[in-house]
């Protein structure tokens, strides 16, 4: 099996790999997401409970602190300080001292309260610093940013407003380690009789809040408190490394987000009632990335394992598939090579292959049938061809046999041109198939003429051979000087002796003394001769015959003497003449023969025979000649004719 890119193996492998990869990716994504979500949810659930608990406890603390500060600030003495007049330097100095002492003892001793000062409507300030120094600034020396100043001045009477955080360095105009970096201001409006409206400002550093949720530190979380303007008031834990607005909007969403240091985290937030500050807990997930990587790796390994198993399964399946496929292919190839008899295919479990096998087997059976038909037709054709050839050969042989047979008959006419005492003519018209008719005439000696006409039973080569034998035996016997009966008796015995083919021959035989016209005839089962006596008509001479030759050894033959006078004629023939049939199967018959002969009884032998021939031709019409037609005519002139 060759591994080629265009092979079925690879064509299927590619989508399989892609599919498995897609499945793995999907699984990885879904599984890791679900897993992470689960972890996250667990974490968040724990932290959410923690946050609720904490925020529930922290907020009241903050509010309590604020209330406490406020109550302190609402003290009449503070108001009275605020209303201090600069009427006399002494009073002023005393008042300052009292104010400082009060602040020191009552307010600034509190954790986180950094200072207390007052602001008039024109922006001028005065108050106490933590170190006990009292100060008084002119309006143009007020370091508060304008928006904060405006917020304080717009505060409704009796309400506390929170301002800040503001940098301590800004607020005091210099930097010092004593001064907190960030100061929150709680301010409210009071009314001074002489100056009108006046504002009290309590300065707080972040420790006032940090102290509140110092207990919240767990190493993982950072807490942030923001004003409604999203300015950070304070925090516990890490510095905020992102935009507060983004932190607040991401909080409570359940999402993991990344701060500006790219660290993953999630957050919860809650908003206070008054002031509308926001408390945020940001939980860092330091192990998150590692955990995600770990999960991803695990799933990737798992996926790789699935891919490997898929490939192994695929390969095993493919091998099985291809084995069955090649088995099918081999089957088809065998068919292609002409082997239609092969055993059944290897069993297959694949539906389509089973269908294919069925179809191939069906095709094979059909082809087999067709091949059988073709082979049978070919065989038949060959047989026909052989038969035809055989037929041709036989016909050729028969034709040759006929030629030999014909050439064995004397055919030169006039046969005895120097003989004036008689005239004779003979003819044999062979049938399509060679038969066994023959005629013969020859001089036994100078004054004796032998006339023979015979008909061998059957047709074909055997008949022709039998005829040749008979003719030659008769000739031999006559030439040795036998009379006709003796000759036929001997020939009969000879033929019976060797006649394994059960053939026989009818013979009419005559030996004539030419000088006198007298002779002896013998008829071995042959048809009757027709005799014409001078001046009369032709008539068949009916008399008792002897049995034909070649069948019975008991047969006896008798000579029949006869005499031919001048002008007498003799006509002998075979049954091919009288038994010639027309298209209606009617036989020519003896009567027609006699009447034909009597058209001109005195005619010369050749004329006589040609007349009979013509009559026969007219009679049979289109019918096929079934038997040989053989005739011999003899006319005796004696001394009446001078040559």
């Amino acid at each position: 099996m060759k591994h080629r890119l265009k092979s079925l193996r690879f064509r299927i492998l590619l989508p399989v790999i892609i599919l498995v990869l897609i499945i793995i990716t999907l699984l990885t994504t879904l599984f890791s997401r679900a897993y992470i979500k689960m972890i996250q949810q667990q974490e968040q659930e724990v932290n959410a409970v923690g946050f609720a608990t904490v925020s529930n406890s922290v907020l009241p603390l903050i509010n309590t602190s604020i209330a406490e500060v406020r109550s302190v600030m609402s003290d009449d003495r503070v108001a009275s300080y605020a209303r201090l007049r600069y009427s006399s330097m002494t009073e002023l100095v005393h008042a300052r001292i009292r104010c400082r002492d009060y602040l020191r003892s009552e307010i600034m001793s509190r954790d986180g309260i950094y200072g207390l000062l007052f602001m008039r409507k024109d922006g001028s300030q005065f108050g106490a610093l933590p170190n006990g120094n009292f100060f008084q600034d002119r309006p143009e020396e007020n370091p508060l940013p304008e928006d904060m100043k405006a917020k304080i001045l717009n505060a409704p009477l009796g309400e506390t407003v929170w301002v800040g955080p503001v940098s301590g360095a800004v607020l005091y105009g210099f930097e010092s380690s004593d001064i907190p970096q960030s100061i929150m201001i709680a301010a409210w409006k009071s009314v001074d009789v002489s100056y009108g409206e006046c504002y009290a400002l309590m300065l707080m550093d972040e420790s006032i809040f940090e102290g509140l949720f110092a207990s919240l530190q767990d190493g993982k979380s950072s807490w942030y408190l923001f004003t409604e303007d999203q300015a950070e008031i304070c925090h516990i834990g890490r510095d905020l490394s992102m935009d507060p607005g983004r932190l607040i909007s991401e909080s409570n969403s359940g999402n993991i987000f990344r701060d500006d240091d790219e660290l993953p985290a999630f957050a919860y937030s809650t908003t206070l009632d008054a002031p509308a500050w926001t408390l945020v807990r940001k939980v860092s997930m330091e192990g998150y990335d590692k955990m995600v990587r770990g999960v991803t790796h695990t799933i990737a390994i798992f996926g790789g394992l699935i891919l490997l198993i898929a490939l192994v399964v695929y390969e095993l399946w493919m091998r099985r598939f291809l084995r069955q496929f090649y088995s099918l292919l081999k089957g088809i190839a065998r068919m292609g090579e002409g082997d239609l008899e092969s055993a059944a295919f290897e069993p297959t479990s694949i539906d389509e292959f089973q269908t294919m096998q069925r179809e191939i087997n069906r095709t094979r059976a059909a082809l087999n049938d067709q091949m059988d038909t073709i082979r049978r037709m070919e065989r038949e054709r060959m047989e026909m061809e052989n038969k035809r050839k055989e037929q041709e050969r036989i016909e050729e042989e028969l034709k040759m046999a006929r030629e030999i047979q014909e050439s064995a008959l004397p055919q030169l006419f006039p046969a005895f041109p120097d003989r004036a005492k008689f005239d004779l003519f003979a003819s044999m018209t062979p049938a399509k198939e060679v038969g066994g008719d023959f005629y013969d005439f020859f001089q036994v000696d100078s004054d004796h003429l032998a006339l023979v006409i015979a008909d061998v039973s059957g047709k074909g080569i055997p008949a022709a051979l039998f005829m040749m034998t008979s003719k030659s035996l008769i000739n031999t016997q006559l030439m040795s000087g036998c009379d006709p009966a003796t000759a036929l008796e001997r020939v009969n015995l000879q033929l019976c002796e060797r006649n394994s083919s059960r053939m026989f021959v009818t013979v009419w035989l005559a030996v004539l003394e030419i000088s006198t016209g007298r002779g002896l005839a013998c008829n071995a089962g042959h048809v009757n001769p027709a005799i014409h006596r001078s001046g009369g008509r032709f008539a068949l001479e009916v008399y008792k015959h002897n049995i034909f030759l070649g069948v019975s050894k008991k047969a006896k033959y008798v000579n029949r003497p006869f005499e031919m006078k001048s002008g007498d004629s003799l006509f002998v023939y075979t049954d091919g003449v009288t038994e010639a049939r027309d298209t209606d199967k009617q036989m020519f018959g003896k009567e027609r023969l006699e009447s034909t002969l009597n058209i001109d009884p005195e005619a010369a032998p050749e004329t006589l025979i040609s007349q009979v021939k013509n009559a026969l031709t007219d009679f049979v019409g289109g019918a096929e000649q079934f038997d040989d037609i053989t005739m011999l005519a003899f006319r005796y002139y004696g001394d009446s004719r001078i040559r």
Partner: protein
Amino acid sequence: MSNTVFELNGKTLTVKPDGELDSVTSPTFEKELREHLSGADSIVVDFEKVNYISSAGLRVFLAVENTLEAHGAEMKLIHVNEHILEIFDLVGFMDVVDVE
């Protein structure tokens, strides 16, 4: 000659050919006759229904007669009609075969 009737009665076989015994029917007739010959030492051929016989037909009887003679059996032709009898007479058939 498919309608020839053969009846074997003891050692006597009676044969009743029907129709013409010519060069077409005779070979079949001879074959059938020879098939029935065994076991019979006397054959009687009934010519009642035979209306024509050719030399081929005559030959059958002459040939069968030869076979029978070799086995010491006999054959006799009976009920031969006048016309056929003439033929028999004409060809010297009765010199060789027993006709009643």
